[in-house]
């Protein structure tokens, strides 16, 4: 891996962390999902996966260890791989908005699986059900964020990066 790529991964992961911190005061409204999708489309799955790995590790360093770490190390790479698969077929903002929405809706359910492993199935079910309103907000806000920001961001980043001779898809 070239120094240029390492720097790019560092900048991408820093953007993810900054994006997370900026909106962390508002429960379950975030731009990390959107950025993961955008980075995968622009820079490919490999760099996006590395950025996600650094991002999650940074989260661990900032907030400490918890059961959510396992989920984080899985959920973002899965989103990147899904995006990578979908973008071969289409680059429609509607398709990615729906993907982000589904991701938001299932976020609590996914983490409930991990909670079930640690604390039992009944706890996992209670965890999921009590978080459903947040999942609804998460899914809908993801849908809106991706729908509104997808085209402008992808378009402008492609323009800027081409000027800097950074390879994009």
């Amino acid at each position, binding site marked *: 891996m070239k120094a240029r790529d390492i720097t790019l991964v560092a900048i991408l992961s820093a953007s993810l962390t900054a994006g997370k911190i900026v909106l962390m005061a508002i429960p379950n409204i975030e731009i990390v999902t959107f950025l993961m999708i955008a980075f995968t489309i622009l820079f490919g799955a490999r760099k996006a996966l590395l950025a996600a790995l650094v991002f999650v590790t940074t989260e661990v360093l900032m907030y400490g260890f918890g059961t959510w770490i396992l989920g984080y190390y899985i959920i973002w790479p899965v989103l990147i791989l899904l995006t990578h698969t979908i973008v071969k077929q289409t680059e429609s903002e*509607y398709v990615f908005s729906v993907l982000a929405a589904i991701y938001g809706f299932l976020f609590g359910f996914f983490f409930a699986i991990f909670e079930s492993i640690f604390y039992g199935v009944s706890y996992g079910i209670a965890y999921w059900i*009590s978080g459903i*309103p947040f999942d609804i907000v998460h899914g*809908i806000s993801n849908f809106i964020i991706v*729908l509104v920001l997808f085209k402008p961001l992808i378009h402008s980043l492609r323009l800027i990066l081409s000027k800097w001779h950074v390879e994009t898809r």
Partner: protein
Amino acid sequence: MNKKVMWIVIAVLCALVALFMYNQYLAPGGQEGSKTVTMEIVVAPEGIEKTYEFKTDADFVYALMMEVESTIKPEFQESSFGIYITGLEGYTADETKNEFYSIKVNGEDAVVGVKELPVEDGKTYRFELSTW
């Protein structure tokens, strides 16, 4: 109408419907207290003799009294020995007449104050205006 705006409006409406359905069918409802206790309040000079039954999850009697504050109208005073009851049912114990509120649990004098007195299921807590 712009296609995206239309989809955003639809998405927000769907979210509102989903939240409404959640509140109707899935949201955990308020749970009644798991402990049932009886509270007797006697203020003889005022002719007050009341018996209440409360369901609560409070750990200590002080917390229970604050839960039912609007019903029993308690008054408290801080002292170096802790908090103690100075008034109930709108009547304030008159110190010049050596009045105070005694606390009995199932007929026996409580040995601690309301902040340290645990709420136990099925017990009767009696607060009676007494003199020393």
